[in-house]
Structure formats: C-alpha cells, structure tokens
C-alpha cells in the first residue's frame, strides 16, 4: 500500500514548507517572447529532432508529423473492401456523427434543433455515449463576459498562445461564439461556480490576459457533458455504442457518404449511408506520442485522423502535441493523470526540489511544461522510487490564500484522488511532470466545419486550425461546444440539398495502391481503435507505471 511520501521526499517537502511564506509573496513575472522561444527550443518535444518524421503518402506528403502518427498514416487501412457488402445498407440517415463525446453530442442536438428529424440522425461511438476526454476536463471553459474583458482580447490570447499559426476565422468563431455557449449551458442547467449575485467566478488560466475561466469545481467537463448527454437522452437521439466507425464511405461523385461501423462485440460490419458525416472522434493521447504517459481517455487513438486522411482530407499542425505541465508523477498508480491547471490559477506555485520557484505559474502550457523538463534535466527535480521525475506543485498555498476548505470544496476531485494514497493536498505539495494531453492540430476545417471533402464535416479535438500550435486552458471545452454546434447547424443546411451517389470504398483501394507505389512495407493496420496494454504492455512505459 502507498502511504504518503517516502522519507527522502519528505525532506524536500520540508524545504518547500520553510520557504512557503517567502514563495507566496515573491513577485512572479511572465517571460518575454524571446525567453519563451529559447526554452521551448531546448526542452519541448515539438522541437526535438527525434520525435518527428516526414509523411510519404497522401495529400500531405512531405509534411513533418509526430512519428507515431506517421506510422499509422502509412499503415494499411484496417478494412479490406472485399469484406464489406455495400449492397446492403444497414442504416440510411441524413447526418452520421462519428463519436459520442462532447463535439458529437452537441452536433446531434443542434442538427435536431436545425430541422433534421431524430430518426435521420445517428451517433456511432466506440465505447459508451459520453466516454470521451470531454468528460475529463477539470479546469474550466473560457468566455469573455466580465466587464474588463472582451472577445477581442480572448482572440488575441488564442492567437498568441497558438504561436500565430491558428486559422484566424476559427479563432474568431471560438472567441465570439463563447458567449452563446455559456448562455446555452445556463439554459440546460449547468451548475457553474458563481458569486452570490449570480456572476461567474472567473479564474485565470495559463496564457490568458484576463480571468475568464468558468468552472464547476474541478469537474467542469463532467458537469457540462452530463447536461448535454442528458438532453440527448431525453430527446432519444439514436446512438450506436461499441460501434466505432472504422472507415468512411465515399461515392462516385467524390463525396463522403457515411461510414463503415464495426461492432466490437459481435465483429460485424454495419454499412451506414449518410448525406453528411461529422467527424467528432476526439484526440490521440493513447498513441503515447514521444513515449509520454497521457491524461487521455481509453479510446483516444486518433481514428478520425486516419480515416479522414484515407478519404483525402488534409491535416494541420500535427507537428505539435500538447504536453500538460502538471501530470501526476507520484504515486505510481496515477502517473500521467491530470492535476488541473486551475490549481495554479488559484495560487499553487511550481517549485523545484530545493523549494525554489522557477517559473511564472501561468505561462502557456508548452512554455510552462518546458521549464518543468528543464528543472528535472538539470537535476533540480525529484526522482520517485520508481524513476519518475517531477517537480512540486505547492497546493497548500491555495487554502492559505483563499481560506481553509477551498481545496476540499473547489478541488474535490484532486483531494479525493490523493486521499486514496494518504496524501493530503491541503498539507503537502503534489509531485508533477508533463503528460501528453491534447492534439493541437488535426483535420482542417473552415468556419462551417467543412473539410476539403464534400459531405465531411469535423468538430472538436480531431480538427486542426482552431488552436494553432498550442491550445490554451479552457479552450477545448469551448472548442467542442462552438464547433459541435456549428457542425450541427451547417450539416442541417447541407443535407437539404445534398444527394449521395453510388457508395464505394474505392478510396481504400487507391490508398493501398499508393502505399505500394511508395514502396512502404508495413505490417501495421489503422485505425487501431484501442491501445494495446496487455501483458508486459501494461507496464511497458517507464513513465507510465514503474
């Protein structure tokens, strides 16, 4: 049984305690753009030479992407067209939504509200409805509603945080639609944390110039998703669970025309024909790019990227990944799991093993994470008994600053998680190290959520362009709501005129031929649907468990 911290870690904690008062009153300054650039180049995996390679097939041939993704994009499509009987259509709908997480569920609600009949909508999802990273987001959701703030400032934060690589029209949609979304949530019944007068408690997040984070304790994602899913269930929106889409269908006019679902429990294929298809498959943390542990959901294996690419969609910004600075580093059973950025937003300061601060606590995530890696590489981190490095996050500061009981009430999840291991976050700091958190880029969309392939729309983490090279805290919950909503509205418009031709899987034959011509020899097949953790793989990552 794990029972608090071992003695040598307690010795370092003593230094943290001795210097706490000083650390709480020390002026913290954010870095200049030049300083940020320097530290990223030296310590962030996005800038390392061995993390990426050039893609050799498809529309983005020649682009540099993370190697783990290239492996899958250069793998053979998992479906052999010969195994699927396209003469038998199992479901014929207007809108097929791939993924039952946040983006997909919001898309279904707005497609319905925009006139698509219930029985013409279908969500196909890999696990249960609502099993998604959306459910796990802790910190909050951004919206510029306080008097000293403006959507233009929010835009500036999004764009600068993304290293000025975002598609401006997508960043604009994110900043402007935010107000509509929070208002919609109020009407659904989301229990946001509020002041007595009903105004939202607005917290700061990394890289935001104003405090505009709306939260519901540290269960914000869960609270929003519960409301959205309950709404979908009350309407009886059709959902196929444990039936991931494994490849898209195309037609003789070059449109996307639905998808092939795979029933993971009966091993059957289902042919789903649709006038419009919404890609809402989420992220890819479970690919453990660059060998990082991850905060992500079990199903986050990047399937949407792969099948969209097979059908000819293009990808953006997959040369970057988001490592979240504060993944748990101790104890082992929770290594890689997230401790929310809101902890820093509420005053917890990162400290090295000498108890000294080394960074402004609220830099954008990539910069903050890079400084953690620096501290550990230069010997100022703590190494756990099983070899996991980390720095302290001094959580007790929160109660000192905001009053006793704040951690227990506003960070119920964190307090509960550590209590299981006899660590009291109100008394002792927690040990953290960066963990793979978010897929910054993905399938390119425009303001109407359209991809370059007619009939294929996208929303949420699977898409690229919204966040550029780095997403800010509180913008992913916002992203799936804003673009899920838009996907619902614009597919509803699109299906009024759309006509599907003869459905095929010819794009897979074409892709296979391309792989052959490029002389790529691979035994891999993609999408992979689930990560492999059986046997030794359960303990294969030094960073993951031991």
């Amino acid at each position, binding site marked *: 049984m794990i029972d608090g911290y071992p003695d040598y870690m307690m010795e370092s904690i003593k230094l943290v305690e001795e210097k706490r008062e000083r650390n709480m009153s020390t002026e913290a300054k954010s870095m200049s753009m030049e300083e940020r650039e320097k530290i990223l180049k030296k310590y962030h995996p996005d800038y390392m030479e061995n993390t990426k390679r050039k893609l050799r097939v498809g529309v983005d041939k020649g682009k540099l992407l993370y190697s783990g993704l290239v492996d899958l994009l250069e793998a053979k499509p998992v479906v052999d067209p010969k195994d699927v009987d396209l003469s038998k259509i199992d479901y014929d709908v207007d809108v097929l939504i791939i993924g039952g997480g946040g983006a997909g569920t919001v898309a279904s609600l707005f497609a319905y509200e925009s006139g698509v009949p219930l029985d013409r909508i279908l969500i196909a999802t890999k696990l249960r409805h609502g099993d998604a990273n959306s*459910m796990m987001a802790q910190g909050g959701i951004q919206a510029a509603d306080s008097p000293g703030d403006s*959507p233009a400032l929010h835009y*500036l934060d999004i764009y600068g945080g993304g290293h000025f690589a975002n598609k401006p029209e997508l960043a604009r949609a994110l900043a*402007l639609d935010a107000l509509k979304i929070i*208002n919609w949530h109020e009407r659904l019944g989301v229990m946001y944390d509020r002041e007595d007068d009903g105004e939202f408690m607005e917290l700061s997040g990394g890289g935001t110039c104003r405090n505009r984070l709306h939260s519901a304790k540290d269960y914000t994602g869960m609270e929003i998703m519960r409301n959205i899913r309950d709404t979908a269930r009350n309407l009886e929106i059709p959902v196929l669970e444990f039936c991931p889409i494994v490849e898209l269908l195309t037609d003789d006019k070059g449109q996307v025309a639905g998808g092939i679902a795979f029933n993971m429990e009966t091993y059957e294929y289902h042919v789903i024909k649709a006038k419009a298809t919404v890609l809402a498959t989420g992220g890819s943390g479970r690919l453990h790019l660059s060998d990082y542990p991850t905060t992500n959901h079990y199903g986050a294996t990047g399937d949407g990227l792969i099948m969209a690419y097979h059908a000819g969609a293009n990808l953006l910004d997959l040369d970057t990944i988001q490592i979240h600075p504060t993944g748990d580093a101790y104890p082992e*059973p929770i290594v890689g799991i997230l401790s929310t950025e809101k902890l820093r937003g509420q005053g917890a300061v990162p400290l090295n093993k000498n108890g000294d601060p080394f960074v402004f606590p609220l830099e954008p995530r990539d910069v903050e994470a890079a400084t953690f890696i620096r501290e550990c590489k*230069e010997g100022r981190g703590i190494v756990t008994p099983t*070899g996991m*490095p980390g720095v302290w996050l001094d959580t007790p500061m929160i109660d000192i600053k905001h009053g006793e009981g704040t951690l227990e009430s506003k960070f119920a999840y964190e307090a509960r*998680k550590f209590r299981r291991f006899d660590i009291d976050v109100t008394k002792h700091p927690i040990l953290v190290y960066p963990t793979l958190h978010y897929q910054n880029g993905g399938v390119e969309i425009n303001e109407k959520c359209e991809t370059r392939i007619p009939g294929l729309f996208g929303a949420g983490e699977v898409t690229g362009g919204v966040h550029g090279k780095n997403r800010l805290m509180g913008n992913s919950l916002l992203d799936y709501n804003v673009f899920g909503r838009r996907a619902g509205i614009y597919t509803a418009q699109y299906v009024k005129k759309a006509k599907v031709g003869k459905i095929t899987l010819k794009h897979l034959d074409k892709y296979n031929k391309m792989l052959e011509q490029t002389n790529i020899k691979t035994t891999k097949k993609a999408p992979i649907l689930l990560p492999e953790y059986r046997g030794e793989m359960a303990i294969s990552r030094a960073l993951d468990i031991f």
Partner: protein
Amino acid sequence: MTKKEQVLLEKPDVKKAEDVEKKAGTVEVFIMGKSYKVPAGLTIMKALEYAGYRYIRGCGCRAGFCGACSTIYRIEDEQKLGFDLACQKVVEDKMYLVQLPFVPAAKVEYDIDKLEPKESTILEIYPEIARCVSCNTCTKSCPQDIEVMKYIQRAVRGEIAKCAEISFDCIQCGLCAMRCPADIKHYHVSQLARRLRGKYIDPKSKNLAKRLKEVENGKYNDDIEKLMKMDKEKIMKLYSDRELEAEKALDLGGD
C-alpha cells in the same frame, strides 16, 4: 544527475515483466474466480490488462471521471463486498474481482424547459424515491464516498438545491442503483436535481447577458477583424505587451 536518470528523461526504458515482478513483488488476484499473479502496486484495471485482458467494456477515462469501470470485490476469507473504480483502486492480495459491464437502470425522459423547480417535481418524476428504507447501502457502495442516501432524502423532501449540492461529484457509475433494495435510480434522480438547480434556482449572470447582446449586435466584429488583418509583427507586439490580470494579482500577493 546520474546517467540513469538522464536516460529516463530522454527515452523511457522498456521494462520486462520479470524485472517489475521482482522489484515490486506480486499479489494473487482472482479475476472472475480465476487466479492470476500480478505485480503489486498496479490498479485493478492495469492488473487485468497485465493478466491478459483487453477491455472493450468496463474501461473509459482511466482517471476516475466516467464511471465505466465500477468494480465489485471481496478479499478471500472476508464476507464483506467492496465497491470501487478499477482505474483508481490498487489491487490487494487475494482479491476476487468482477466488473459491471452495464447498468440497466431506467431513466425517465423529460423536457427540462417544461419543468418547474417545485418541491414535488423530483417525486413526481421518480416516485420510487419515497420507498427509500434508509438502509444506507447506496452510500456504502459509492466509490466517490458521496452521501447518497442523504441526497435521496433531500430529494424526497423537495430540497432540490441541497440534493444537487451533495450529489455534485457523482460519476454516474450506477453502483448505488444496482444495490438498492427499493429500486431507486439515485444517479438519475440527482442528475435531474442538478439540472433543476442549474437552470432555475441559481441566479444568472447579468454580465453574460449584457455581453451576449453586444456580441449579437456586432460590437466586437471590427476589433477582431482588425486583429485578423494585422501584420504579424504588429500583432506579436500587441500580444507581448498586453497586461496580465493574473500577474497583477500575484504582485499583490493575493486576490
């Protein structure tokens, strides 16, 4: 820093099972009655995977949010059943394990816009809550340690806001409903309470309403348009010069 630590940071070591077993020691678990030896210190979820299981059901977020991996266990020679999440609970020696693949509890469909937050609202939609026999089995089976029975009794009394507050951390795993002798669907009941509170009882933000109207009237369109068209150097300067509210707060040593 030792060479070993550097290696760990550069590229994680792939450990062999035997090394880990030797280092951590092993425990015996009975997965649905069958005996397996697994390294000590693993969560139940990782222990099953180590033993060779690949999850389709019974696994979700792997971090204690989604309620997919509710597990019932018993330690050999003990009578008492334990309830927890496979992704959070660490295996113990001689543990008998089974996971719930699905919870068949009925949910009532309603239109939240047509409800009123009256004392009787929850009772009308879920009348079976009146059958609560106060056995507290629901509370004892909650992996989140929520006072489940207490919030059901608040619901019976029509105290919507309190029911919502007590139940807030519910991850909807359904263990409460599976154990209840009165067939109460606690996690559906509290979902209704929270929505009623969020929608009707908590006061609303005036700032949001005001800003939303401004946005709908296009007040910020020009500002953002200008930023979108600005050349890169200029916007980079604007970005790096902006004043950080959080920085100010930290300077003052508090909020």
